[in-house]
């Protein structure tokens, strides 16, 4: 990689920062240069976000069909699976799985709802009243 060929394709860095890219200068010596980004990286990053969005969409479908509780939406949105959510909520995984179902969700006590909404960084009302579009 030569210094003057370091790509500057703005994308995931969003104008917030630039990344260090190692490249050789005209004397063949390595230097640290800055790159605003590179199109292939932007493409694969976008794909990863597409996968997350797909899980959110799936969760929303299930909630609409009455097969899942709002927790499933926020779990997907926060890029979590039941194992990670259980870790954050300090609950066992099987309990989290029960709360992902509408029946288990209805039985949650206020302090349990509070616990989940804290993990998702939202209010209890946002959690309880969540309706997918």
């Amino acid at each position: 990689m030569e210094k003057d060929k370091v790509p500057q394709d703005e994308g995931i860095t969003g104008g917030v920062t630039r990344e260090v890219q190692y490249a050789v200068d005209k004397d063949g010596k390595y230097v640290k240069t800055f790159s605003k980004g590179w199109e292939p990286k932007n493409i694969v990053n976008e794909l990863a976000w597409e996968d997350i969005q797909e899980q959110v969409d799936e969760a929303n479908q299930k909630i609409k069909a009455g097969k899942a509780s709002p927790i499933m939406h926020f779990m997907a949105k926060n890029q979590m699976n039941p194992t990670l959510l259980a870790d954050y909520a300090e609950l066992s995984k099987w309990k989290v799985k029960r709360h992902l179902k509408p029946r288990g969700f209805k039985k949650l006590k206020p302090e349990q709802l509070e616990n989940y909404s804290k993990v998702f960084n939202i209010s209890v009302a946002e959690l309880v009243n969540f309706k997918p579009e």
Partner: protein
Amino acid sequence: MKLDFEHIPAGHCENGVISSLLKYHGLNLSEAMIFGIGSGYFFAYLPFVKLNGIPLASFRPVPGMIFARAAKRLGIKMKKQTFRKQPKRAMDELDKVLEKKLPVGVQTGVYYLSYFPPAYRFHFNAHNLTVYGKENGNYLISDPVMEYPTTLTYEELKKARFAKGPLSPNGKMYYPINIPENIHLKPAIIKGIKQTCDWMLTIPVPLFGVKGIRYLAKRVRKWPDKLGARKAASYLAQLVRMLEEIGTGGAGFRFIYAAFLQEVSEVMDDQRYFELSKEMTQIGDKWRSFSSLAAQTCKGRSSDPDAYNTISNLMLDIASDEEQFFIKLKKLIRNAGK
């Protein structure tokens, strides 16, 4: 309170933090030098470890290892602390060390680092940064992958230090407590290079080093058939992200290693390392072609088997190049040790 700490942007967080911590204490070693001495160059394919449900391919050893090896080989003593389930204590301890005018390296989860561009923010828990002060309740942060220093609130930093899931940091923090007056670079370099050669060439499990690249190449060929177009694209995309995304200096650390070899050629006063650095640059360039080709294939999630075949062949080609390269380097370093 703000320490007189220089923010040095780096390719890779772990080495970047160590390099700038050492610089604060008067020892000038580049990120590339730490990376090389710590045998940071590697390849591993771990089909049984899943990241986002996708088998993990890694172009480096497990987090913390590069730095532990480099410190040991240079005779630097680091103080390391973790605080399981004690966030308050972890934050108090950080404050205490800062009061002693010592910048501190901490391990964090990327998901909670508010200063990152949103596109960066995945659950990845082995990100390192330096805390170099506290002003108005906010922590002064030198994150090597950021162009400029930033800040975090108490709550943000606490959350990031206690991110959960794989590789959870448990509040891990570290700082140098003893740096020898005379650093012996040569023996450290030799040890670092030898281990890299061995790890790339001789681990008798087909998932590591050059063999691992070949193994994965064969898998990639089958992905569209086995997984379907959509999933195959996700797999390939994650592979490219491991190679290129935040903190590799490009091409899965291959360019950082090339920079390291240039420094070695100066320390050893031996032009042959400079020549090998050029070869490593070519290997890095090939990985960049791989990334470019793979990204194009992911885009639109086409399942064109020809594209996956081409990608697989390119990986096999790179594996051969890396094999030849490390055979040469191994010969060279064996004689350097005498």
